[in-house]
């Protein structure tokens, strides 16, 4: 690793700290004189820490804000409020040269391998673009070689630098995207649904690659996914999001074995398990209705409209994501308890 980060890299120390991150998208009316009539609360007060070398899974259904969270961290969107500290520097205050330096520490692998690569650039140009933008990352003469090394690392034929993206399959394109993200030797890679666009038999190949790269380069991942089975496979810690909030966060063990939030429990029980014998053993919690609109979330606890435990207090008092008596990991439920049958 040659990244110009902290000299001593201690596994387990905090590399990214996110504090009360908020993103509201204004809803406006009128053509010429726009006035704001509301806001979509895509991310509404999210805090977490990411440690060196770990994988933090972020799970939730569509509209829970997990993709907005990724875009905020990558500075593709400007947050409404909140802070994030990357390598001791304020991520959202940085601009110009400082932002460019910070970007080298954090890269993203995107969901759709068909739109995330420029169809008119060769693979060599795509993977080499980071070096064109950050010329100090690789001396000019060595770039082609570096690109070929990267292709080799992600399991592609280094001879294929002059090919175009359309000459590759979905899984291979995703590998090209991973090579591009690796080029600047980042500390953190945000993976936004990196395998959900791939065929089942190809997904495993990419997941294994990500795991192997983590070991090799000491990467930290923020792994955003809707597939809880994939998340369990690869993640050390998991955050469950619902309507812009983290409702429960803990180690893989805590979330998958001792979840205390009813939403997490429902989510887990709804995952289809590829084993017909298992369906007889499991109790499946069926949630009624759909996720409410993030433009108009319910008062108090946001999950109360679909929760079977909801009582009056849930409509009045917003539960904080704090450790609960049932299990010492943070959970945002007034009635947090472990269910043995999930």
């Amino acid at each position: 690793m040659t990244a110009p980060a902290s000299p001593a890299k201690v596994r387990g120390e905090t590399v990214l700290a996110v504090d009360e991150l908020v993103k509201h998208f204004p809803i406006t009316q009128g053509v010429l004189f726009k006035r704001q009539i509301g806001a979509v609360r895509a991310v509404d007060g999210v805090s977490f820490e990411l440690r060196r070398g770990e994988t933090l899974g972020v799970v939730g259904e569509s509209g829970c804000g997990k993709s907005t969270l990724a875009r905020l961290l990558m500075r593709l969107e400007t947050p409404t409020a909140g802070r994030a500290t990357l390598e001791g520097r304020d991520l959202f205050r940085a601009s110009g040269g400082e932002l460019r330096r910070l970007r080298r520490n954090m890269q993203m692998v995107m969901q759709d391998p068909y739109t995330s690569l420029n169809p008119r650039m060769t693979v060599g140009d795509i993977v080499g673009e980071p070096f064109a933008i950050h010329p100090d990352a690789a001396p000019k003469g060595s770039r082609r070689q570096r690109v070929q090394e990267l292709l080799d690392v992600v399991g592609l034929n280094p001879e294929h630098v002059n090919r175009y993206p359309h000459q590759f399959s979905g899984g291979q394109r995703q590998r090209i995207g991973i090579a591009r993200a690796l080029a600047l030797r980042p500390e953190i890679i945000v993976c936004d649904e990196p395998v959900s666009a791939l065929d089942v038999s190809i997904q495993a190949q990419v997941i294994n690659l990500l795991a192997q790269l983590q070991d090799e380069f000491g990467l930290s991942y923020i792994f955003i996914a809707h597939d809880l089975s994939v998340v369990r496979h690869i993640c050390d810690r998991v955050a469950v999001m619902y309507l812009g909030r983290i409702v429960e966060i803990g180690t893989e063990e805590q979330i998958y074995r001792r979840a205390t939030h009813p939403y997490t429990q429902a989510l887990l029980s709804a995952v289809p398990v590829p084993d017909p014998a298992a369906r007889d053993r499991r109790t499946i919690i069926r949630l009624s209705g759909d996720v409410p609109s993030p433009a108009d979330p319910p008062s108090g606890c946001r999950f109360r409209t679909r929760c079977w435990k909801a009582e009056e207090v849930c409509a009045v008092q917003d539960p904080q994501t704090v450790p609960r008596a049932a299990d010492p990991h943070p959970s945002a439920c007034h009635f947090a308890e472990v269910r043995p049958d999930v």
Partner: protein
Amino acid sequence: MTESAVRPTPASPTPPEGHLLEVRDLHVEFRTREGVARVINGVTYHLDAGETLAVLGESGSGKSVTAQAIMGILDTPPAYVRSGEIRYRGRDLLTRSEEERRQVRGTEIAMIFQDALSALNPVFPVGWQIGESLRQRAGLSRADARRRTVELMDLVRIPAAATRLGDYPHQFSGGMRQRVMIAMALALDPKVLIADEPTTALDVTVQAQIMDLLADLRRDLGMALILITHDLGVVAGVADRIAVMYAGRIVEHADVRSLYRAPAHPYTKGLLESIPRLDVRGQALSTIPGLPPNLMRIPPGCPFHPRCLYAQQVCVDEVPHDLVLGDGRTSACHFAQEVHDDRAR
């Protein structure tokens, strides 16, 4: 149906215990500028009244094309049925006129698609769309069609159905749109429902609701269901039997429990081992190496042999026939027994 009963051809009697729907040795090819892609290469499966058959496969395996052939909605060109039979209640649909096939579509066999948003017309209210076939084909009056539409929407558990008749598709959530589409498919009371990836575009919790709904409807209405999917998890929950497709062929066919317990085809086995499981946290996932074949250049012999761990010379030389294992299972693998026993051990 009376017509088929008097037809003397021995090939098409309607045996009382005959299958409701039967696909026999179907071959479909796509003729394109680059050449001929053999998309379906001898698919055979059947469906009995009231049962659920899952057709499992990845992109390009031909699972959806088979369903389109059954429905008679293949895009021709480029798709052409080269040979084969699709028998519904003993009569071959492929030899019938377009007009006759249209009669079967909707009233006997109906289909729902993955993308409910694009399958619904954005400029008409959903009530009108569900009622359309009731008015046009069942000949119901406006008032009757409206009443039946509300019943159908209740049936698929759309809350406050009567008040939502006038709403447009974009005013519904993804799960609700899928329900609207199911209601449309059920309007003419079909005997067979083909669901093509019905829950793929939906969130996990909504997915579970829709699968429950389909299972309940099948039971309550006595329909037969063909569930086309790539998701091994979804299949495990609802299907009675599974047909696994690869490169336009059915490589394995078995009842759900025995297939998951001991797959008898290396492809099925590879798929089962490569998916991460919620209830098991493992290390590196085992993978199926390589990529599915180009359908214009399907490898000789067994199409799976370049990716197969069991492959021998015979797999390159000979196309494997369906090997019948116990309890009516078949596997198109020269080493089906070995694969099966490997898992059992």
